[in-house]
């Protein structure tokens, strides 16, 4: 059996999405900007996709949803674009973000720091959430941008985006949110919330890889980073990725349609998995179920290093993820685990399981069984965890 529980890393392309994309490789392959039928026959599908995207996040027709290559590009565009438009000219010199953002945000900010920009990285509590008062106090006259994720990729914790939006409006500061982990998991409405920029990526909600978008509120246009032709109103040059855009549109439509399913069925499976795993002694999960995206569990299993756990799971065909430094190419511990800092061990024992609407009951049963077996094997090897011998009445 093969079980895919790493949906916060990427997802299976929904077969309906794939079907929608298929004609735009070998049949309708024209360049949409060309003046001939090969080009123009792609237009209906592209318009449909843009409709699906605008509806999906409830964007106003005067706003822009600019298609990019991925959320990392969208994020870099916002942060560096704000630098060119509001910091380089001397108006402002400060950006606020959090310690638990995706590396795209953190590294783009670190880069701006080398250019002299001041960056505040807001700390998080043991649940992985920022304090709103700290955010309020951090905003100054110098602040050009607040960039805070909608939901965290490691913990699934949902940030209070509505309140953050209000604070930014109050203080008249631009607000960007990285919604990569939110689309398809929680309702995302850019009119209900004060959001100036919003980034996402299709492959996190059963769309294809290599396509993402940046939502830009009306009148909040930023300098383009990709100069070239006049595609996307000149905001992001480069020949349109027709099958990618068509696929992302369809994926968005399905993601919104399935929000209720996500909240009921996926969450139910997640909760069952979580409850069963918490029966294993000396385990804990970061954050309460309610505060999290419905598909994510970040569990610490004492005495078992994350990569060793992944190894055993992979042998049994189960895909998961860990924040452990040992599993990182650079041998660096995951800053999210460090920032949460609830237990020092978390940085080494964290196991992330992320479900999707394609996860089945049987897969969860199998996973519970395999994780229990792996815990038994690896705790027997572990020098930092010992089972009480059977004859110990104290169970200590």
């Amino acid at each position: 059996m093969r079980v895919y529980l790493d949906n916060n890393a990427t997802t299976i392309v929904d077969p309906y999405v794939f079907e929608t994309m298929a004609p735009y490789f070998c049949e309708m392959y024209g360049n949409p900007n060309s003046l001939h039928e090969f080009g123009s026959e792609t237009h209906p599908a592209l318009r449909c996709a843009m409709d699906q995207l605008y509806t999906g996040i409830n964007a106003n027709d005067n706003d822009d949803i600019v298609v990019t290559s991925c959320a990392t590009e969208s994020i870099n565009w916002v942060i560096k674009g704000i630098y060119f438009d509001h910091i380089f000219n001397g108006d402002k010199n400060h950006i606020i973000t959090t310690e638990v953002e995706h590396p795209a945000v953190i590294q783009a900010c670190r880069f701006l720091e080398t250019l002299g920009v001041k960056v505040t990285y807001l700390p998080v509590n043991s649940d992985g959430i920022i304090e709103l008062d700290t955010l309020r106090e951090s905003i100054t006259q110098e602040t050009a941008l607040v960039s805070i994720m909608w939901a965290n990729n490691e913990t699934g914790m949902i940030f209070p985006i509505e309140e953050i939006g209000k604070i930014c409006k109050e203080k008249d500061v631009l607000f960007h949110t990285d919604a990569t982990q939110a689309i398809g998991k929680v309702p995302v409405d850019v009119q209900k919330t004060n959001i100036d920029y919003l980034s996402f990526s299709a492959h996190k909600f059963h769309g294809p890889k290599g396509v993402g978008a940046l939502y830009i509120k009306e009148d909040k246009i930023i300098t383009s980073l990709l100069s070239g032709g006049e595609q996307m109103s000149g905001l992001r040059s480069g020949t349109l990725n027709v099958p990618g855009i068509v696929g992302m549109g369809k994926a968005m439509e399905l993601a919104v349609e399935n929000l209720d399913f996500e909240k009921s069925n996926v969450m139910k499976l997640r909760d069952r998995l979580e409850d069963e795993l918490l029966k294993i002694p000396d385990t804990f999960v970061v954050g309460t179920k309610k505060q999290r995206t419905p598909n994510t569990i970040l569990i610490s299993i004492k005495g078992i290093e994350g990569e060793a756990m992944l190894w055993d799971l992979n042998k049994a065909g189960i895909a998961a993820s860990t924040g452990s430094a040992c599993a990182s190419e650079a041998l660096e511990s995951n800053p999210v685990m460090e920032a949460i800092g609830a237990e020092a061990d978390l940085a080494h024992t964290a196991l992330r399981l992320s479900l999707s609407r394609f996860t089945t009951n049987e897969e969860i049963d199998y996973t519970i069984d395999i994780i229990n077996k792996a815990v038994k094997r690896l705790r027997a090897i572990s020098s930092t965890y010992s089972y009480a011998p059977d004859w110990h009445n104290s169970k200590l």
Partner: protein
Amino acid sequence: MGKNNLIGGSIWEEYSQKVQDLMNNPQNMGEITEEQAKEMGAKLIVADFGAESCGDAVRLYWAVDEKTDKILDAKFKSFGCGTAIASSDTMAELCKGKTVDEAVKITNIDVEKAMRDNPDTPAVPPQKMHCSVMAYDVIKEAAASYKGVDSSSFEDQIIVCECARVSLGTIKEVIKLNDLKTVEQITDFTKAGAFCKSCIKPGGHEEREYYLVDILKETREEMEQNKLTALADAKTAESGEFGFEDLTMVQKLKKVEKIIDDNIREMLIMDGGNLEIVDIRDTDDGYTDIYIRYLGACSGCASSSTGTLYAIEAILREKLSQNIRVLPI
């Protein structure tokens, strides 16, 4: 960078088959109890290294025959990734049958080499080398415990990186053994500096007594010094057999001065003159140019730029090297 580094996520593909097999089925995993040690007529040694909060921890059990100092059996337990388990297992295997003194000589490199499928391909990717370093450290702990030596009293045991509990001695040794040239390499090999990064250089999370940048600089200097000393010793031992060209400038100058003192200066003094060496330089085309200044009667003497000069040059060439040129200034 380059073709092989552009697509990531391949650390598992770089594990040798031996490492993978040991991760799946460690051979020496477990404990040795007091009773089991007694049955073997051996002394039980239990040593710990690392801690769970550091990401790696290993416990080593030895049953040692006190008459012969021989390790009769070795077992381990490990909190760590797969390669930590495989390294600890290999380390325990290597200990078996050796005396305690022999076991202390097992290095992280021995452990890593023992896990290779073929001698030329590393058993683990570079960032996983630290796992075998820890296997090496726990042996020293066990040996210290067996010999009743307090390991903390060693200068070696100054902890430079608290997060990964890496000692000054380990860092210096790893630098020397593996000829490490950067702080990043030290981190790859020992894990020092991989966590809070305070110990890399001043200005980090917390103030430290030792920093990796300084240790690296000092150890490299020490290595360079040792190399020079070894070279000089070798030359003294077989002096004369070494080519003049191989000597350092200082050594060349000394040789030249000695020849001049022994063979030339007295003759010049007899004629009321003398010379001093102003400079000595190696040229790009392979010559050693010796710049001299004539003193007394020699300066201004017609012969000083002809016959006398040729004679001086001829003596130096004969005694030291054909590539010497003497240039009066």
